[in-house]
């Protein structure tokens, strides 16, 4: 087949093709827009619904981009010099990696109107803590009794074939494993006790899922009845109509603050400050403390909501276990490898 294409038509077609990218306005070119990474699911929904109008009032647009904490770092590392996000939402495990890799920068607290309302523990050099995530054990009361703690899950026969586990890619699982390891005599430098325990328990495990959300899907389907979870996970399952309760481990509830960070080289730092201020405002935290998010407030003007109080008290939060993330990060890759090799059939 021979195409009859005049030189003029070919030139026009070529120019049009070359001009096409200029017609598509890239998102990062919008100066007044903030691209903020948040955890997918209830966080994403709540932040988009609640914070977008507040940030707009301050004169900025807000794009909420859902991504797991580790994915946020991976994407940031993949685009050196051209960060895909202006703001991140992560836990201390990831914050340490971000600081070490020079991916975030300290903030100027004087630019946050609500800074002084935060609890002292929530006033971090690299950004405000927007909530404290308290972790423990989620269980289905229609299937099993309330577990006395982590040890019961591995020693009481009623939990056999009901417990789900996940790997060290999850913060919740990592904290649980380090706590269980301590209970069985281990330390951050010696995780062998927990690996021995897991190896012996594998034949009786309910499921080994690939992620926290995968575990929640399995719970909804009745495949499992117990998993390591945050209070937020339990609130979400309850909202979906599932019978779900939260149990505090015997060694204390491993907890992590969740922090908004300003990305180094962010396209819109002013917008990030507006976004941070909205997230720590009493108005936002009062709403976020209600179901289904049930986030523990860090703004001192916001009391614990009824649903949050069902899970934790301010005293429990004050006495919670705050893991050593520097020690965890130093070994996390090695633990992840060991876990994977242990569980793969």
């Amino acid at each position, binding site marked *: 087949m021979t195409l009859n294409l005049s030189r003029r038509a070919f030139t026009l077609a070529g120019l049009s093709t070359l001009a096409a990218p200029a017609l598509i306005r890239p998102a990062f070119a919008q100066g007044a827009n903030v691209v903020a990474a948040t955890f997918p699911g209830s966080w994403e929904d709540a932040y988009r619904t609640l914070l977008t109008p507040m940030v707009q009032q301050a004169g900025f647009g807000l794009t909420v981009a859902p991504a*797991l904490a580790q994915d946020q*770092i*991976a994407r940031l590392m993949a685009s050196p010099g051209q960060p895909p996000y202006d703001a991140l939402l992560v836990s201390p495990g990831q914050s340490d990696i971000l600081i070490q890799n020079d991916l975030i920068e300290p903030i100027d607290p004087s630019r946050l109107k609500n800074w002084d309302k935060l609890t002292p523990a929530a006033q971090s050099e690299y950004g405000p803590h927007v909530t404290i995530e308290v972790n423990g054990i989620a269980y289905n009361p229609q299937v099993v009794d309330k577990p006395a703690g982590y040890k019961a899950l591995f020693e009481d026969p009623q939990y056999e074939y009901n417990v789900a586990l996940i790997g060290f*890619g999850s913060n919740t699982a990592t904290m649980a494993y380090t706590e269980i390891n301590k209970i069985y005599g281990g330390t951050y430098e010696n995780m062998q006790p927990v690996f021995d325990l897991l190896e012996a328990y594998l034949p009786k495990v309910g499921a080994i899922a*690939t992620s926290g959300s*995968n575990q929640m899907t399995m719970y909804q389907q009745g495949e499992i009845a117990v998993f390591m979870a945050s209070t937020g996970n339990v609130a979400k399952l309850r909202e979906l109509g599932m019978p779900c309760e939260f149990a505090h481990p015997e060694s204390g509830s491993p907890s992590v603050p969740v922090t908004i960070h300003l990305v180094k080289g962010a396209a819109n730092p002013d917008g990030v400050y507006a976004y941070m201020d909205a997230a720590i405002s009493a108005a936002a935290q009062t709403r976020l403390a209600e179901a289904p998010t049930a986030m523990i407030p860090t703004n001192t003007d916001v009391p614990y909501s009824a649903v949050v109080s069902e899970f934790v008290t301010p005293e429990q939060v004050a006495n919670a276990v705050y893991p050593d993330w520097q020690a965890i990060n130093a070994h996390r890759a090695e633990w992840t490898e060991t876990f994977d090799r242990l569980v793969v059939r």
Partner: protein
Amino acid sequence: MIRRDTLMAWPMIGFMLLFFISPLLLLLGISLRGADGGWGFGNFAAFLSDPFSRGVLTGTLALGAKVTFFVSLAALPLVMLYWHGGPRLRGLILICTLLPMLTANVVRTFAWVVILGRNGPISQSMLALGLTDRPFSLLFSEMGLIMALVQIELPLLLLPVFAVLNRADRRTLEAAETLGAGPWRAWFSAIFPQIIPAVLAGWVLVFASATTSYVTQSVIGGARLIYLPQYVYREVGVLFQWPMAAAISILLLASTGIIMLGLTMLARHERLQGHG
């Protein structure tokens, strides 16, 4: 000198070079970066010298082969039905084949979570029929994963075969029968050779899709069945070992690519094209 009738292809060739070939070259470059900042094949050597990693690689290729085999078995009766059916039945089969493809792979995977679960229809009907004394789950098992992948990948084999069957020459079948062949022998000697290239093309698609189906592998297979796409994700998203992730990606691409190339060359073989 550029032929005028190829002019329209050049923008697409340029596009492919820019957005497909150059990222691949970049990936190859990253895979050659060592932990010490030097260059070499250290990541490939580390992966291939580790029995666990080799097991993941062979397990992934074996999964692709198993899924391709079972997809072929599942496709056979549908192909026969399509061949013998009238226009209405053919239309119905075609719609039933295309319909699942209109929903996202993620949706189909989560539908299989329900089907394979202990409260799902498979377990419950076995229980009702007295074939088992308690509910069971096929989730997080290779059997469950293969079942889901077979259903998800089936259209990739059926569609090219249906396309060939639509223009297959029925007179060759009549000729075979006239020469004394029974119905099965006539079909396999007269029609089957015509669809072999389409079958091989379908196998290429099914194999490639099954070995790289991250969502289905991770959701249905769980963490105890680890395949290369999950391995790559772990290296990138959990361990941040980008050069190793790139090396594994290249190995996945190369190993599936070699098998696909072999099948494609087979499909182009003169005898399979009916010219031998």
